[in-house]
């Protein structure tokens, strides 16, 4: 076990020491303390600082200033008002900042989305589609649901990827990215299933060259395998060697000159 150095505890003991010194506090400070009840910790922290200053003044052997209660009260009220005003100003500043930020975000989002005309066309087109085929065409149902969900999710991030029109132009279509990701992952899972069942572990597969070389092995005059050389061996080594050779040649040329 590591022996921990006894750490000097911070506020309580020093506050006690300061409080002892700060007994002859003026009325002003008491009034301040009374008003600053909402911030007790700052009061406790503020105490030692103020006490230090007071401590310096004390060495001058002067009598403390005399103030009337009314003036002290007025001053205290002024202080309070100033404090309140600064707080209010800060709050309004923050609010304005926040508002500006929100507007900026909305503008950026608007810039990202398609122009209103095209969105209108899409929504009207889907609605007319629904009107045209009253039967249970599942595709159109989902398209409408999609539109509703899209409109509802406008505040969240709805990205429009490839566009291919539903209207007469027939050049773009709006697709939800989330659906596309799901579809891609399912397609990949399906392809992985097929690959595993046909070429995965447990299947008895061999390379094409070995397969074609079987006939060569049984000939009366045995021939070599179909792919006798493995050109894919040591590609990195060969590339490094080529590069080194080129550089060596260049160096040789330079030294010769």
């Amino acid at each position, binding site marked *: 076990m590591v022996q921990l150095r006894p750490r000097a505890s911070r506020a309580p003991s020093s506050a006690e020491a300061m409080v002892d010194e700060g007994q002859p506090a003026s009325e002003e400070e008491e009034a301040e303390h009374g008003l600053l009840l909402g911030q007790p910790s700052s009061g406790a922290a503020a105490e030692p600082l103020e006490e230090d200053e007071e401590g310096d003044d004390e060495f001058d052997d002067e009598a403390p200033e005399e103030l009337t209660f009314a003036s002290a009260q007025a001053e205290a009220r002024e202080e309070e008002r100033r404090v309140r005003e600064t707080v209010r100003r800060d709050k309004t500043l923050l609010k304005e900042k926040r508002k500006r930020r929100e507007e900026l975000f909305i503008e950026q989002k608007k810039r990202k989305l398609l122009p209103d005309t095209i969105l209108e066309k899409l929504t009207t087109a889907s609605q007319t589609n629904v009107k045209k085929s009253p039967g249970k*065409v599942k595709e159109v149902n*989902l398209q409408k649901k999609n539109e509703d969900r899209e409109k509802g999710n406008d505040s969240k991030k709805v990205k429009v990827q490839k566009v291919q029109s539903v209207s007469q132009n027939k050049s773009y279509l709006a697709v939800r990215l989330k659906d596309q990701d799901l579809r891609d992952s*399912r397609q990949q899972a399906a392809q992985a299933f097929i690959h595993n069942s046909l070429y995965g572990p447990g*299947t008895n597969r061999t390379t*094409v060259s070995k397969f074609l070389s079987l006939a060569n092995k049984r000939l009366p005059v045995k021939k070599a395998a179909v792919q006798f050389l493995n050109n894919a061996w040591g590609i990195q080594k060969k590339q490094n060697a080529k590069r080194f050779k080129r550089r060596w040649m260049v160096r040789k040329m330079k030294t010769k000159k």
Partner: protein
Amino acid sequence: MGEFKVHRVRFFNYVPSGIRCVAYNNQSNRLAVSRTDGTVEVYNLSANYFQEKFFPGHESRATEALCWAEGQRLFSAGLNGEIMEYDLQALNIKYAVDAFGGPIWSMAASPSGSQLLVGCEDGSVKLFQITPDKIQFERNFDRQKSRILSLSWHPSGTHIAAGSIDYISVFDVKSGSAVHKMIVDRQYMGVSKRKCIVWGVAFLSDGTVISVDSAGKVQFWDSATGTLVNSHLIANADVQSIAVAEQEDSFVVGTAEGTVFHFQLVPVTSNSSEKQWVRTKPFQHHTHDVRTVAHSPTALISGGTDTHLVIRPLMEKVEVKNYDAALRKITFPHRRLISCSKKRQLLLFQFAHHLELWRLGSTVATGKNGDTLPLSKNADHLLHLKTKGPENIICSCISPCGSWIAYSTVSRFFLYRLNYEHDNISLKRVSKMPPFLRSALQILFSEDSTKLFVASNQGALHIVQLSGGSFKHLHAFQPQSGTVEAMCLLAVSSDGNWLAASGTSAGVHVYNVKQLKLHCTVPAYNFPVTAMAIAPNTNNLVIAHSDQQVFEYSIPDKQYTDWSRTVQKQGFHHLWLQRDTPITHISFHPKRPMHILLHDAYMFCIIDKSLPLPNDRTLLYNPFPPTNESDVVRRRTAHAFKISKIYKPLLFMDLLDERTLVAVERPLDDIIAQLPPPIKKKKFGT
């Protein structure tokens, strides 16, 4: 014929994508094939197995199921969760409906053709009603625990069998509830750790459900009681596909080892009425997984990861035993993927998502016939141009002068201008393409590279004037009468006056470019056009069809030429008509107007119109005439068709100048070397 130096090009790294689904349509004898990159091709089996339409693929589209519905409507469903209908007239996708069940694994059309059943990732089976212009969701069946990987309707339309992981469910269509749940045994090579995936189910009219699963078993279940009747262990690997004939007396299964098995309903003894299912024929035409099979009335069709489409006619079903009953293996594309700029000796290769531009190498050596000359300058890979977006490239072209490259995807058209300084090349894209140029089926530049001809899939033909770095739309020829078909081919004459366009059922139209009007129409022929070209001086249009007929039509005279009439009267040599692969390119010699150079995947031929035509008794494939034979013998055996099979498989062959040919080969081994891993085979002695 003359002496030529031949550039043998083998650096076109063409790898087709594997076949994922196949659907056979009985009424029109057409086969729809979908590949792993999303391309859907339609083959016309009665037009000599020619690929007459195709829909380009898309990166996000992984088709898992393909089916025909009534009225020749083609639907596909894939892992992106959408059901797509293809418009076979306009060659685009009509619409895509999301099924909201996650990735779709299987799809089946009802026997009446008016309903569509879809099996999804979340275990739900959804029923859709096919309306005249769209499909409408009807209802969901009971949701199952795991993904529905295969579906099959009972021929009466009352019950459905759905295969999933480790079990098969039988549903009642009216109520939508699962009637039976049959558990499939997991045992695989003695180990039962891996889940048993039921890759295919088939429902017969007597209530038997046939299932094929990943443990290598073919099992027969009784759907009335929900019990296993019979089980055959046929492979050490997965059995991945099953297809039943219409008469329900035979079915075919495909395994992951590349073997296709034929099962037939045979009487137990020769005169008993009791029948049983017996495995009759194994076929090993594939090296990799056979992921899909189909059963037409006379043939077994299979396709898989090794990219071949194999059509095996059944001998007992074929009436006339002629060359039609032979095995057909479709490996190489039926259209041209390479264009050539003769002036600068450049080749443009079209891949699914990028284009490559190469400059041919050169040699200064000379040699005798048959020598291989060493290259003094290697071929240069000048440009690798990737397309933006997930769509596949439909067509591409480079201008003869080499300064323009144009290519088109379904939604956009790209035009680039190339600048050459010394050995460097710089590319600049021409922006702001007009919207009518999207989705071009064929692009062609005129000989002087000032005009661009674009055939769009709406049937319109656009002429664009190119000058400097900009373009100007000159004229658009509207579609003529007759339905628009795919495989629109264009040919332009070398003087720039005439433009020929095939692609409608009314025949080949010839337009006058200078006066911007229709000049004449070559009479329609019932087989599709596979290649077309206009001869330089005589302006004769040479057309090759998918049944290996070659016609020559004189454009100024507006009638077939005399040579063409004599050929038609005599008929082609029977070996010529029995060739498997269509002619994909025709070109001409600038100084020899009597020569036509054409090629298909396994031969190239120079037709000399001045020599006599061969009749059925002469040898068609003339070996190289030995020089020590007498002149008389040589003259007797000489005929118009000079065929060479030295360079094969050929993807492209053209005449660069008077003494040079370029032949782009694609050896099959190079394609196979880049395919996914196959199942291991244990052979004795290795």
